[in-house]
């Protein structure tokens, strides 16, 4: 059955007429959903929800100057979850028929084995805002329409500099139809688009080869890839590659680190974001357990996790448990404010869910996850921050990071950056890992500029084997002291 996405896109909300279309899309009706829920709660569960999803992901690749590969992945199914207190029973089926759903419901029901039987309440559509309007649904954009974008970027990359020897370019887009119904009577629908172009370059100079990368991504339609953005994709990927010919390794050890505005928000994601996911706190395994209401940073530090920013990767009209998203303050003026909650942790802490319940797909249980994590602008200026550093590192592009939730050790890997010497940005650096302790680094954020920027690239956050799209942002920030991987001079 074909679904008309245009209506869902007109926003600002999903109308009840659209509910019927979502129901038809998945081939179910209210009676079937209610029967499946009754089955799911038949062993004494307190609550259940059904997460219907149809996802279509497309990848088209250019290599050796030709668009010569395309991949598609389709996912279709329903996940059924039953809760008994903070215990979870989960099952999914890839066959959306009443029998297959009831069988899955019976499996999930087994988490409970006693208690009063809760009856599902009659479903009522909850309308949601639209934080990601796009002009044309991706299903209407065929392979033929995307091919020219890749060829244009490739031509520009090679025109940019003679040292370029290879480019790999990917056009990636995704669409997910989601319908969530729960036993408390809520039903919500969403249409979630995603678009990305990623450019990899390899260059050669005097026998030395270097490679780097730049991408743009968001909950966007094809109109996002304007001539200006196409130009930036080519130029920035080349610039980042060529600068590596002059790159050096910094000295190993602790030093001042200045983070460039934008994707450097990876610092927040790793240093505090994961530790504030409420499941880790409910289990008392996070270094931030029992710290709510306490001062954790200078008073000009305010850190948020926001699901409502227009067209960002981590934005959600509704989270994967059917709850409204919001702007959640992790740290407000230096004080630790709120964890990131899903339904289970919100019940445990007796607070309202913050709209952070997310999952990779219908095959996965929701967990508290970040959306768009960034720091609000502060009182300093970028120039004064750079000028204040005698010997340090200026980091601007990253590949990945990781954190140990309990110990607080976190890392992020710098793909391009510069040394700062006597208040001035000097030589480029590359391939250094930075490692610090979350709470310590928060305390060591000594300057925050007024130039907040959200990273434009495609970040995917992994947790317990599930990947979800996120965004990160930061103004120019100075951390007093953090360990930088590099070259040691002395034998220890």
């Amino acid at each position, binding site marked *: 059955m074909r679904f008309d996405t245009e209506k869902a896109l007109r926003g600002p909300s999903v109308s009840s007429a659209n509910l019927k279309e979502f129901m038809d899309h998945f081939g179910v009706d209210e009676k079937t959903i209610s029967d499946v829920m009754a089955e799911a709660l038949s062993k004494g569960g307190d609550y259940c929800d059904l997460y219907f999803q149809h996802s279509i992901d497309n990848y088209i690749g250019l290599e050796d100057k030709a668009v010569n590969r395309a*991949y*598609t992945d*389709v996912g279709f199914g329903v996940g059924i979850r039953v809760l008994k207190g903070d215990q979870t029973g989960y099952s999914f089926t890839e066959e959306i028929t009443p029998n297959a759903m009831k069988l899955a419901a019976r499996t999930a029901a087994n988490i409970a084995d006693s208690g009063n039987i809760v009856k599902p309440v009659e479903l009522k559509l909850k309308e949601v805002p639209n934080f990601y309007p796009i002009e044309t649904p991706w299903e209407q954009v065929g392979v033929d329409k995307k091919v020219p974008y890749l060829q244009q970027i490739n031509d520009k990359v090679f025109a940019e500099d003679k040292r370029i020897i290879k480019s790999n370019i990917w056009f990636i887009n995704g669409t997910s139809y989601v319908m969530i119904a729960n036993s408390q009577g809520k039903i919500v629908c969403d249409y979630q688009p995603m678009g990305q172009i990623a450019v990899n370059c390899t260059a050669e100079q005097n026998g030395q080869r270097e*490679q780097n990368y730049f991408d743009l991504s968001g909950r966007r339609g094809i109109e996002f890839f304007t001539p200006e953005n196409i130009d930036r994709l080519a130029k920035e990927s080349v610039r980042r590659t060529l600068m590596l010919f002059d790159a050096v390794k910094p000295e190993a050890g602790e030093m001042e680190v200045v983070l460039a505005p934008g994707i450097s928000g990876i610092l927040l994601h790793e240093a505090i974001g994961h530790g504030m996911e409420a499941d880790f706190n409910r289990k008392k395994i996070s270094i931030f357990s029992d710290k709510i209401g306490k001062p954790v940073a200078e008073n000009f530090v305010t850190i948020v996790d926001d699901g409502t920013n227009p067209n960002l990767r981590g934005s959600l009209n509704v989270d994967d448990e059917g709850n409204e998203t919001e702007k959640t303050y992790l740290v407000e003026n230096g004080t630790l404010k709120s964890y990131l909650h899903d339904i289970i942790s919100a019940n445990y802490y007796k607070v309202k869910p913050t709209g952070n319940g997310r999952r990779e797909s219908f095959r996965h249980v929701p967990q508290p996850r970040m959306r768009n994590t960034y720091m609000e602008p502060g009182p300093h200026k970028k120039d004064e921050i750079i000028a204040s550093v005698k010997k340090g590192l200026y980091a601007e592009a990253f590949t990945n990071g990781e954190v140990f939730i*309990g*110990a607080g*050790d976190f890392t992020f890997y710098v793909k391009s950056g510069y040394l700062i010497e006597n208040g001035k940005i000097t030589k480029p650096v590359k391939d250094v*890992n930075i490692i610090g302790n979350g709470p310590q680094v928060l305390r060591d954020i000594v300057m925050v500029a007024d130039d907040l920027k959200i990273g434009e690239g495609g970040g995917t956050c992994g947790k317990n084997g599930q990947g979800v799209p996120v965004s990160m942002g930061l103004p120019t920030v100075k951390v007093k002291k953090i360990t930088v991987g590099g070259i040691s001079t002395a034998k220890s």
Partner: protein
Amino acid sequence: MNNKERLDLAEWAMNYALKTGADESSAVIYNSRDIEIEYRDKKLETMKESTRNSLSLQVYADKRYSGHSTNDLRKDSLEKFIKEAVAGTKYLTRDEFRALPDPKYYPENTDTDLGLTDPGYDKIEASERKNIASEIERVASAQSDLIISATAGYNDSYYEFARVHSNGFKGEGAGTFFTAGASVTVNDKDGGRPEDWYYATSRFRNELPTPEMLGRNAAERALKKIGQKKIESGIYEMLVENRAGSRLLYMLAEPLSARALQQKSSFLDGMLDKPIASDKLTVIDDPFVRGGFGSRIFDGEGIAAKKKMIIEKGVLRNYYVDNYYGKKIGMEPNSGSTSNILFEYGTKSLEDMIKDQKRAILVNGFIGGNSNSTTGDFSFGIVGFLIENGKIVKPVNEMNVSGNAKDFWKSLAEMGNDPYPYSSMKIPTMAFTGVNFSGL
């Protein structure tokens, strides 16, 4: 789905692609069943049960290529899916290297039994799974008052697949996996809440260690982290515990691929039959290990599995060459993916290797970091212990190791005698000299 249904569906999908315009096609139908149990605080935390079914289809039409997967296996959905897949392929650029592998690379016999399936899988009771997880959690939690939280997990899975190629390949496979263990978080008064884990995996249920051993090891590992702190930056000798070593070996995986060679993004380009590591490093790819996690008769392209020497006493002997990039660079395909990775082992245990060190860092886990396949540069976060005069003196963390793989592997001084049993990479403890650590 039984074997015949699976094979029939794969053949139908492949033939439907040919009927709608493909010249060549391959199809895989994959089915799996997974059960996961998690115990925490003496009660069931999560119970998850799932079955998956999927089709992967490759389409070759007029030297144009595309790949597709779906789990919506209803016939009418599949027909539409395959038609669109073939139709979309015609907008791509022709590529003379795109074709299924030459049938001469397919195995002659695909039904050798490598012992990958536990015959007792069907007989495992739901209560047995819960008992294993709850017992591990009980043991782990009982080890010390300093334990804040212990989460124990048990997981088993069963998978089956059928693969068909339009130029004459047909193969099937099946297997089981069992995993059990725990993660433990402990209280370190001034150092946060360090955690560690101990999980074991096997093809066979009765080869898993006892819950007692799994729970105790997880707790002991976490308790040993209490008091961890970074120490001064410098050049140290380094021991890498067997279970952590794969992170270092993976630095070589991408650069060893034919793709990286063809794309000029491998620092191992041009190094065939030349030394790339010290003579202590011998790496063998062996797909025929009985019950091995990576064992197979044919790979993901239908190419017959072969045992091959990758690195022989430090000398590079083979790249991983897949069908497409092999053709592009004029090399015979020998499989583009790893199977079981074995090593030439030394004679000493981890304990003996610690005794030999005057001052060194024993790395028992990595955190974050990355490596650059084009240049060999790497930098990883680490946790572990400081060794002085043959003894572990204190736990360390929040440090990086950095270097370049071209020099780094030449500093490999010794391999241990203790291959890590719970991975397809049976790596032992390794000793390196003169490694850059950054800390204070």
